[in-house]
């Protein structure tokens, strides 16, 4: 309704100065989006197709028809498919256990914690633990089974590590859906004479099918874009596209080849995005998460199924806890697998030699965090509440860097900011910008979702009582979207501490990151410091997110409290 547009305008006509300021602010926002989202992508496309000032398809064709490329593409797809299926199934198992198996409160909490760990860890934590456990000197392979010269690298371990890393995403996508389906449906089916299994198969499963598809596509996308796990675990025989692109650029200094390889990722990534929009879209929409579950019974599975579910979840949780304990153990012994004398040497190393990386990472994360949080609620408010021109375009553009695989974004930034007019390579700015524009969309999405729950009459009520637009925003809207702001802060901070796929292309001698240091340590087989760095990152992330949660609780009214930080 265009009348709404006029209404929004007439709600409160601020002074002319205010309007001027908001126009200027909007212009700055658009400029930032152009510089940090559109421009790098245009540069990437130009670089991929341009040779000596002409558009040439020869490099593209050469890359596509290259048997190495084709194998990497096939490997990427195969890996993503496997991770998608396995991760969704494990996620479903956890979601069922949490929502239907009548777990005690403490057990449910433990499951939540176990699934949270992989989400807040550096991306290759599981990979490192995998090497510790199953590598040539691994705890299980070498110490326990006595196997010599075990080959840990390849599809199997990459697949297993990615599944453990990403299944919590499927769990988070499936659980609210299960919670929103009242178990009275299952009770109804059961009361009509069907078995528990029959009820699950004919009632529950069809209802959560969209959520299952969504979870699969999410995992497929994450695995496709995952850079860190294959870099450590895939080895030389099992190459995937993101690592190929990285090696092309850092090993062979072939920027054009790297650009083309990264763009190849765009094809399956685009298809996944299309499938999500086209086939799932609104159907996986969950209205009020969690609420339905409080009223309904949670023990609608048979005894056998319950035991199986609990056993599966406990096994998985034990595995995750084992991996993290192993990581911690590796950080406090002299040499993992060889000398198990306890020592703080590795921590000493990371706080002396590794100190610059720690300082740089913290500075970047702490600067990026407020910027990203602010950017998230501003864009979310503009897109979700106002009627400004081009808000749809703004929404799509603001999501781009988030939706694209990190490798693409990293290479695009590298190409865009290497030369004049915007020479930012080697600065902290480029790293902060990369994190802010890549990881704020969570804040944007949360803001939009919260705004959808706030009726427009709230603003009208404020206006009718004499408040200007600015006052209404400050006194009514801002407090109500505060949880989204904190969610934005949390995600940007966590990712600034842990992400690597895009920023590995952007680090320099002046500004480097802990994650890059961990990777270097792994390639130099300095396993101790790598483990110590990982433990340090996890600890920092846990402390900071706890502080953010605490601050959020202090700042919001008790009735509005939402647990929105963490994932």
């Amino acid at each position, binding site marked *: *309704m265009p009348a709404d547009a006029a*209404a929004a305008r007439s709600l409160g006509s601020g002074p002319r100065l205010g309007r001027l300021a908001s126009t200027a602010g909007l212009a700055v926002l658009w400029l930032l989006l152009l510089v940090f989202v559109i421009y790098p992508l245009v540069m990437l496309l130009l670089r991929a197709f341009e040779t000596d000032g002409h558009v040439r398809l020869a490099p593209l064709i050469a890359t596509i028809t290259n048997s190495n490329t084709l194998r990497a593409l096939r490997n990427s797809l195969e890996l993503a498919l496997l991770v998608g299926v396995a991760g969704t199934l494990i996620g479903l198992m956890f979601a069922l256990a949490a929502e239907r198996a009548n777990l005690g409160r403490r057990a449910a909490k433990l499951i939540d914690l176990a699934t949270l760990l992989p989400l807040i860890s550096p991306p290759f934590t599981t990979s490192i633990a995998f090497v510790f456990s199953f590598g040539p000197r691994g705890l299980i392979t070498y110490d326990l089974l006595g196997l010599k010269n075990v080959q840990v690298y390849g599809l199997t371990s990459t697949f297993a590590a990615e599944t453990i890393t990403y299944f919590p995403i499927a769990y988070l996508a499936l659980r609210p859906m299960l919670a929103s389906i009242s178990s009275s449906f299952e009770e109804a089916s059961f009361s009509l004479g069907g078995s528990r299994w029959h009820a699950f198969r004919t009632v529950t499963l069809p209802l959560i099918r969209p959520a299952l598809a969504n979870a699969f596509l999410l995992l497929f996308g994450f695995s496709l874009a995952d850079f860190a796990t294959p870099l450590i675990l895939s080895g030389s025989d099992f190459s995937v596209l993101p690592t190929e692109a990285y090696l092309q650029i850092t090993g062979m200094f072939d920027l054009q080849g790297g650009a083309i390889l990264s763009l190849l990722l765009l094809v399956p990534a685009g298809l996944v995005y299309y499938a999500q929009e086209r086939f799932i879209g609104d159907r996986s929409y969950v209205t009020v998460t969690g609420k339905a579950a409080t009223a309904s019974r949670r023990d609608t599975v048979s005894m056998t199924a319950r035991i199986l579910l609990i056993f599966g979840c406990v096994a998985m949780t034990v595995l995750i806890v084992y991996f993290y304990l192993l990581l911690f153990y590796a950080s406090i012994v002299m040499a993992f697998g060889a000398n198990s004398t306890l020592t703080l040497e590795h921590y000493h190393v990371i706080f002396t030699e590794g100190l610059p990386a720690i300082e740089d990472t913290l500075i970047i994360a702490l600067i990026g965090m407020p910027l990203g949080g602010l950017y998230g609620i501003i864009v979310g408010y503009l897109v979700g509440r106002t009627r400004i021109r081009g808000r749809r375009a703004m929404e799509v553009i603001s999501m781009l860097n988030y939706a694209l695989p990190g490798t693409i974004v990293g290479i695009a930034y590298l190409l865009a900011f290497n030369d004049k007019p915007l020479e930012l390579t080697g600065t902290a700015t480029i790293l902060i910008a990369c994190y802010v524009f890549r990881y704020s969309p969570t804040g944007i999405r949360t803001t939009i979702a919260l705004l959808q729950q706030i009726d427009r009459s709230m603003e009208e009520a404020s206006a009718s009582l004499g408040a200007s637009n600015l006052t209404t925003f400050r006194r009514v809207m801002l407090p109500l979207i505060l949880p989204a702001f904190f969610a934005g802060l949390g995600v940007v901070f966590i990712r600034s501490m842990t992400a690597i796929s895009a920023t590995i292309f952007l680090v320099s001698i002046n500004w480097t990151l802990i994650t890059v240091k961990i990777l270097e340590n792994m390639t130099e087989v300095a396993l101790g410091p790598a483990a110590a760095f990982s433990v340090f990152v996890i600890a920092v992330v846990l402390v900071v997110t706890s502080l953010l949660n605490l601050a959020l609780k202090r700042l919001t009214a008790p009735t509005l409290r939402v647990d929105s930080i963490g994932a």
Partner: protein
Amino acid sequence: MGLSAVFHHERRGDVTAVEALDLDIQPGEFLTLLGPSGCGKTTTLRMIAGFQPPSAGRILFGAEDVTDLAANQRDIGFVFQNYALFPHLSVFENVAYGLRVKRRNAAEIGARVAEGLLQVGLQGMGDRMIAELSGGQQQRVALARAIAVKPRVLLFDEPLSNLDAQLRVQMRTEIARLQAELAITTIYVTHDQEEAMAVSHRIAIMQGGRIAQVGTAEDLYQRPASHFVAGFLGSTNMVRATVAGAESGAVILDVAGFRWQLATAQEFAVGQTVEAVVRPESLAFAAAGHGLDGVVESRVYLGAKAEYVVRCNGQTMQVVQANPVSGRLYAVGEAVCLQLPPAGVQLLRIDG
């Protein structure tokens, strides 16, 4: 030129929600906009509030033209259908909101909020959070918040539609009492005719974006200007008749062969077809030959009254028999005779 609101609809083109509406409301008056859903009553209210600009026409508060003023500059109090209370603020802070925006000092705010809460019967509840209140209490907070700023105009948008029946009756009495006390010009929107009749000084019945009739509840009920108004306010029998004779102060009507003498100030020509608005409670059972003959089709006994549907010559008539204890009850299938009232019936001309 009256007030109009035209909306653009993607598929249906321009849709006129309110058309050339002209309404004059007296200072301190309680006026209700009453009509079926989609009649434009809420749109009219939102234009008066300033949430929506009219496509044509002016809105005046007293002598001041407020058409181009934004809602926050109109000095109004608005009570929303869903209350629109701020969930992050306490009861006190919700009521104080408008005063804080206007930068009143703390002492005044404290006094005005306490007064407002007292007026709606929520004294001592200032520290509660909104979520801790019942629906009726939330409604009271919304009311207190609107009157705390001492607005020039008080606007209600179906404020009672979320409450249960009993609470609705209680709240509408309180709203009417409060309005009389404060003497703030009030415009109230509802689709509930009983509610409208209970609270208002005058009612404006709306139909299809236009005002069908404005008047007191008695005016509208006893002298409806159109078929729509007659049918919308209360239940009624529309009895078709031909004017068989006319003299000053009375007409003789022919109702399917029965001659009905009716005292009326309205004037008609002999031979004209009219519709008589005969209310169910104005019909009475009589001895044969004194009215319309019919057969009882159904009966609902409700204690204080009995409701009948009687079929007379192909027309069904609703009849309400008050205090059935003193009379006799008629059975379904029984032949009866309905006596038409000798006066107090509105006659509507039928054109063509």
